[in-house]
C-alpha cells in the first residue's frame, strides 16, 4: 500500500503528539519506580481521573483555565499526597508484590468511582486551542495536535531542567540512585520521594488535559493508557527518565504508522513485540542502566 508523503507527515505529527503524551505518563511512572519501587498499575486511571476533576469544576461554572488549575491541584493532592500516604507508605516495607496488588485494586476503584459518581458515558472535553487545519507542504496538520505537542514538549523540558539543573532535582536523582548514600549526604530522602509523587500528580493531570479532547473523558480510558505508558517505560529503560521519553515517542509514532501501513487489527501487537525483543536482547531498556543482582 502506497501512502503519499503528505499523509506520512500528518501521521508523523499526530504520532509525535500522542507519543509526547505517552512520554509524560511514562516519565511519571518511572519516577515512582525509581524513588520508591512502586509499580503503579493504576497509572492509566491516574490519567483518566483529572479530566473528571476538571469537568466537575466546569460544572460549577469555572472557566476552563481555572478548572484546569483546580484539576492539577486536586490531582497533586489526591493522586500524589493521598496515594503516597494511604497506599504506598504502609506497604513499601513488604516488597513489590503486595503493592502491585494494591495498585491493581486501586485502578478498579478509581475506574468504578468515575463511573458511579460522574458518568458511564464518554464526556466531550474542551481542546486547548480551537482546532484549525493548517496546510504545510500539502499536509493537513491540526492546530490542536501542534498545541498538544508544544505543551507536552514544554513539560518534558521543564522536568528535565528541574531534574538536571537544580539542586532539588539532583537531590531527587541521588535519592533514586542510592537512597542510603543520599541520606548520608544529608538529603531529606523521604521528602524527595514525596516530591516525585507530587510531580507524578502534575504529569498525569497535564496528560489528562492533553489526551481527553482526543479520546473524550471516559472511565475506561485508563486501561490502554496505563498499558502504553508501562510499555513505553520498559522499552525506553525503566530506570531512566530520558528512556521513558524515548519509549513514549517511539510508541506514539509506531502506533500511528503501523495502523496506517501494516495492520490496524494488530496495531496493539507491535509495541508488545518490540517489548519482548527489547527485554530479551536488552533487558535494561534502550537507554537503561543495568541493575546489579545480589547473590
Amino acid at each position: 500500500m502506497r501512502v503519499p508523503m503528505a499523509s506520512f507527515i500528518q501521521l508523523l505529527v499526530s504520532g509525535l503528539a500522542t507519543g509526547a503524551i505517552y512520554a509524560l505518563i511514562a516519565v511519571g511512572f518511572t519516577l515512582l519506580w525509581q524513588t520508591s519501587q512502586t509499580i503503579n498499575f493504576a497509572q492509566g486511571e491516574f490519567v483518566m481521573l483529572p479530566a473528571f476533576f476538571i469537568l466537575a469544576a466546569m460544572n460549577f461554572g469555572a472557566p476552563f483555565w481555572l478548572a484546569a488549575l483546580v484539576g492539577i491541584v486536586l490531582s497533586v493532592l489526591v493522586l500524589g499526597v493521598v496515594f503516597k500516604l494511604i497506599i504506598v507508605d504502609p506497604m513499601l516495607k513488604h516488597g513489590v508484590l503486595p503493592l502491585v496488588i494494591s495498585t491493581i485494586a486501586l485502578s478498579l476503584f478509581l475506574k468504578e468511582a468515575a463511573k458511579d459518581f460522574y458518568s458511564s458515558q464518554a464526556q466531550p472535553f474542551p481542546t486547548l486551542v480551537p482546532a484549525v487545519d493548517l496546510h504545510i507542504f500539502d499536509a493537513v496538520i491540526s492546530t490542536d495536535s501542534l498545541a498538544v505537542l508544544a505543551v507536552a514538549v514544554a513539560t518534558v523540558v521543564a522536568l528535565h531542567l528541574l531534574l538536571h539543573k537544580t539542586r532539588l532535582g539532583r537531590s531527587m536523582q541521588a535519592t533514586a540512585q542510592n537512597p542510603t548514600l543520599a541520606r548520608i549526604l544529608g538529603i531529606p530522602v523521604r521528602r524527595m520521594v514525596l516530591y516525585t509523587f507530587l510531580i507524578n500528580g502534575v504529569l498525569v493531570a497535564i496528560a489528562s488535559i492533553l489526551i481527553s479532547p482526543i479520546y473524550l473523558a471516559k472511565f475506561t480510558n485508563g486501561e490502554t493508557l496505563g498499558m502504553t505508558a508501562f510499555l513505553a517505560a520498559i522499552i525506553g529503560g525503566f530506570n531512566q527518565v530520558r528512556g521513558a521519553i524515548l519509549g513514549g515517542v517511539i510508541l506514539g509514532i509506531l502506533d500511528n504508522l503501523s495502523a496506517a501501513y501494516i495492520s490496524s487489527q494488530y496495531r496493539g501487537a507491535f509495541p508488545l513485540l518490540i517489548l519482548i525483543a527489547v527485554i530479551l536482547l536488552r533487558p535494561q531498556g534502550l537507554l537503561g542502566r543495568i541493575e546489579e543482582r545480589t547473590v
Partner: protein
Amino acid sequence: MNRLGAVLIVIVALCAVGLPFFLKPFGVYLISMWVVLTIAAIGLNLTLGYAGQVSLAQGAFVGIGAYAAALLMQAGWPYPAAFVSAGLLCFAVGWILGYPALRVQHHYLAFVTLAFTTLVFLVLRNEEWLTHGIYGIGSIARPTLFGWSTNNPRAFYFFSLGMLTLLAAGTWWMLRSPWGRAFVALRENSVRALSLGLDTRRYTLMAFAIGSMLGGLSGALYAPLVQFIEPNSFALGLSFNLLLMVIVGGSGKFFGPFLGALIAVLLPEWMRIAEGYYLITYAALIMVMMAFCPYGVLGMVERALKAAAVRRDPPMPAVHGEATGS
C-alpha cells in the same frame, strides 16, 4: 498444629461436598467457578509462590486451555482427550514462555508475561477463522463420563471438585518431592541453588510449564462450566485476578490459592448488597486487606501461630516448616 490442620481440611472438604445441596443454581455456579479458578491459582502459586517466577500470564493459559478444549470438542474429540490435550498444549507453551525467565527476573519477567497475555488476547480476538473472534464460541457441551452426564450444575460441580482434588493432591505430592524443594531453592536464592549443583535452568522451565499446565486444565474446565467463551474473559484482567488470588490467599502457602480464589470469586458477589457500588467496595476491601496482611491471609495466620508458639515455648527456635517470604 498438624492435627488442627487435618481437622480443618476435613471440615472444609465436608462443606465443599455438602454445600451445593443448599444452594440455588447460581450459587452452585459460583462455587464451581471457585473450584475451576482455584486450579489455575494453584498453578500460579507453583510458578510464583514456590519457584518465585513472577507471571502475569496465567489468565492467558486459562484462555488457551479453554479455547483448545472447546475447539477440540467441536471437532468431535471426546472430552477427556480434549482435557488432556489442553493441558499438554499449555505445558508446551509454558515451557517456551519459561525461556525469557532464564534471562530476566522479577519485574522484567512480569512485563514479558504481561506482553504474552496481551498477545494471546489479540490472537484470540483477531484470528476469526480459528476462534470466531469477538463472537466467541457458544453452546459448549458439558461432558458425559462413563455414562454419567455432568450437564446438571451440581453434577458438573462435583466433577470439577473431583478434578481439583486430583490435581491438588498431585501438586501436594510434587511439592514434597525433591522437585518441590528445588523450586523453593530457585525462589530463595537461584545463584546459590546453581552453585549447589541444581539444574536451575531445567527447574525454571519446569516451574513455568507445570504451572501453565494447571492453568490450561483449569481453562478446559472453565469452557464447559460457562459454556460460552470469548476473548475478553482472558484479557489481562483475569491474569491480574489470578495474581490477586495467590497474593491475597498467601503466596507460597499450599492452601493460599484456595482461600484467595474464594475471596476473589465470592467477595464481589457478597458485596452486591452495596448494589451499584459493589466493585468499589470490593476494590477498597482488597486494598485494606493488603495493607493489613501483605503476606496474604494464610501468611498472617501462620505468623500469628508462630508468634503464639514462641510465647508458649520460648527456648525452642523455629527449625523447619515452609519458608516464609516474598
